[in-house]
């Protein structure tokens, strides 16, 4: 039967796929905000892992609570990262990561 029971490894494979797409986005995009979107994809992949382990392995709620903390930290991270990006944009009028080479010696 094609539609068998969905097990833990199916969720983990989905999470790995999402993570790899995020890696691709982070490595190839030029726009700093697009890179941030790739990081968000990777964080979501990690959260899927945590919640899936909470369902299939752990008997308590530890995985879900870890996912909650991870979401909180992702929100803080994106706020600070966007502040940095906008600050850089105000200074240099570009968010092209290839042109941000002020610190290059």
């Amino acid at each position, binding site marked *: 039967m094609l*539609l*068998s029971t*969905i*097990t*833990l*490894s199916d*969720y*983990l*494979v*989905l999470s*790995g796929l*999402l*993570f*790899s*797409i995020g*890696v*691709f986005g982070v*490595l*190839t*995009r*030029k726009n*700093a*905000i*697009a890179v*941030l*979107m*790739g990081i*968000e*994809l990777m964080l*979501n992949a990690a*959260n*899927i892992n945590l*919640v*899936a382990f*909470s369902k*299939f*392995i752990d008997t*308590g*709620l530890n995985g*879900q*609570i870890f*996912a*909650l903390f991870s*979401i*909180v*930290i*992702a*929100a*803080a*991270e994106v*706020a*600070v990262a*966007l*502040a940095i990006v*906008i*600050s850089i944009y105000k*200074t240099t*009028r570009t*968010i*092209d990561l290839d042109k941000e080479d002020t610190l290059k010696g």
Partner: protein
Amino acid sequence: MSVNSYTVQAVFFYIFAALIVGSALLVVLLRNIVRSAFALFFTLFGVAGIYILLGADFVGVTQVLIYIGGVLILIVFGVMLTHNVYSVDIFNKLGTLVMGTVSAIVTFTMIYYAIKQVPWLYIGYKANAPTTGPIGRELMTSYLLPFELASVLLVLAMIGAAYLIRSEVKVKKAAGNGGPSGERPADGIRKED
């Protein structure tokens, strides 16, 4: 549980998985960054669906509230404030594109074989129960210190973000050269405080 409910679960899993993977590919491949942001909306929504499919109703609702309601709005604002929306040249050079593709494929292959090699122990079917009450109890007992630290972290991030946006104006005024962007109507207002 009957076999029928497993089939329904599988159908929903594949629907959400296709939604997540398809829209995530759109996020990284679309050239218009505004369209990427809208594709990210569908990815985050699909992840919320996966959470609810896994019986994590509270985490799913939190995902909708914080990621879709907060992070995505922030990103859209970032896009609008900085925009170079219609620039065609979003991707890096071809070499970087090839290297990115190769590293993504290698990463996925490694993860896939690691997952397939482990004999995961299975604790049997766990009935879906409401999780909001137990999560609240856990946060107030076993996870009290991380909970408080998370609130401190959020305050720090908020102050830090506000400071990062503000301080750049002061530095430029102190430097006196104005930089490449001298136009800001808010400068006169900020001088008072």
